[in-house]
């Protein structure tokens, strides 16, 4: 009897709490998904250097994105392109990814329209140590990558390296103290992925972007 009572008890409370969590989950899924999408759009706009007012609503952000950004695929990889008000191509953005300290690091790197210079970097997801490796999200760290010269294309040996004691050239940057593995991961991801992106330079240039909707 006790045995049956125990089983029944677990069954009832498991049923109740599973119902509670799935109820909450169902009620909030839409909102969470919208937040997620808005975050992705905001990051894409930010890395592409498209300005939007800080308190923009999700709808406003989506609208700016649809007016100014186009995306397509080369093989398996996405390519994003930003166009200015008149419809001229301003910048490209490419997804990058690789191994971090605790898990994968994913991000977007922006290149200028002639594919010769890095114009921006943002990390879309990572699980680095908060307060240490997670500081790769800070603006000062990401902004260092702006202006890195990639004009030699995929023949270039290394695009980024970290350097003690300040900068010697635009390709040498400050790492994060106490986060050596994360810093090195970022360096490797950029070196590998920029090489891969630039090896498809000609294909990227030949992309036939659909014309943007007229305003």
């Amino acid at each position, binding site marked *: 009897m*006790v045995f049956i*009572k*125990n089983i029944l*008890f*677990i069954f009832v*409370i*498991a049923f109740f*709490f*599973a119902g*509670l*969590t799935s109820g*909450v*989950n169902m009620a*909030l899924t839409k*909102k*969470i998904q919208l*937040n*997620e999408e808005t*975050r992705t759009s905001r990051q894409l706009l930010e890395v592409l250097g498209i300005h939007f007012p800080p308190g923009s609503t999700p709808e406003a952000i989506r609208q700016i994105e649809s007016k100014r950004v186009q995306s397509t695929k080369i093989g398996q990889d996405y390519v994003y392109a930003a166009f200015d008000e008149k419809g001229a191509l301003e910048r490209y953005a490419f997804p990058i990814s690789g191994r971090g300290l605790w898990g994968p690091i994913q991000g977007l790197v922006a290149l200028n329209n002639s594919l010769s210079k890095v114009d921006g970097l943002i990390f879309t997801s990572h*699980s680095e140590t*908060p*307060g*240490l490796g*997670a500081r790769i999200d800070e603006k000062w760290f990401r902004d260092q990558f702006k202006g890195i010269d990639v004009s030699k294309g995929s023949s270039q040996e290394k695009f980024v390296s970290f350097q003690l004691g300040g900068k010697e050239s635009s390709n040498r940057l400050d790492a994060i*103290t*106490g986060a050596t593995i994360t810093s090195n991961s970022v360096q490797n991801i950029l070196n590998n992925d920029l090489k891969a992106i630039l090896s498809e330079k000609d294909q990227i240039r030949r992309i036939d972007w659909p014309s943007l909707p007229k305003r």
Partner: protein
Amino acid sequence: MAVSSKKIALDGVWYNNPIFRQVLGICSTLAVTNLVENTAVMCLGLIYTNAVSCFTASALRTVTPFRLRIISSTLIIAAYVIVLHNFLMAYLPDISAQLGPYVGLIITNCIVLGRVEAFAIQNKPFPALVDGVSSAIGYSMILLVISIVREGLGFGSIAGITIPFDFTKWTIMVMAPGAFFMLAIVVWIARWWGMRMEAQGEVKK
């Protein structure tokens, strides 16, 4: 077992403080205290989880079979943490992104299971609620002190606001060893203070 709420509250916050008396919840004390902001959200999360879990476990205490108490407590705690996690993702997406892994880790915080097991399942819901809130506050108090010192010395800022004078940052303070040193120092001071108070109390009698 009719103990006044005030005594339960004082016990949770100070005399039986989960950190320096019971030495529970040390994992998160070490992990989240290098930034004041993260610590504060973690503390609020724990206060909520501990309060509702203790209350629910206590409300169900008469029907919970003795041998199934841990499994049902864990289920209760996990369900409430998932609810919290969902609410953070929906309404505070920025904080949720920063705290991602930590919120889920509240489930494994020893204080919650410790208080549920040690107090809630033997007491009525209201005292259990008071106990849950007060021991979570006791935990939060110590964590905030540790995080203020660690962020202050390690990053030269407190809750993201830069300290006006310049000094060499103690990088070790934001890494794991800094947490061990600070925790030991805080436990030492708190216990010394507690012992002094006790000694004085005895003299007065």
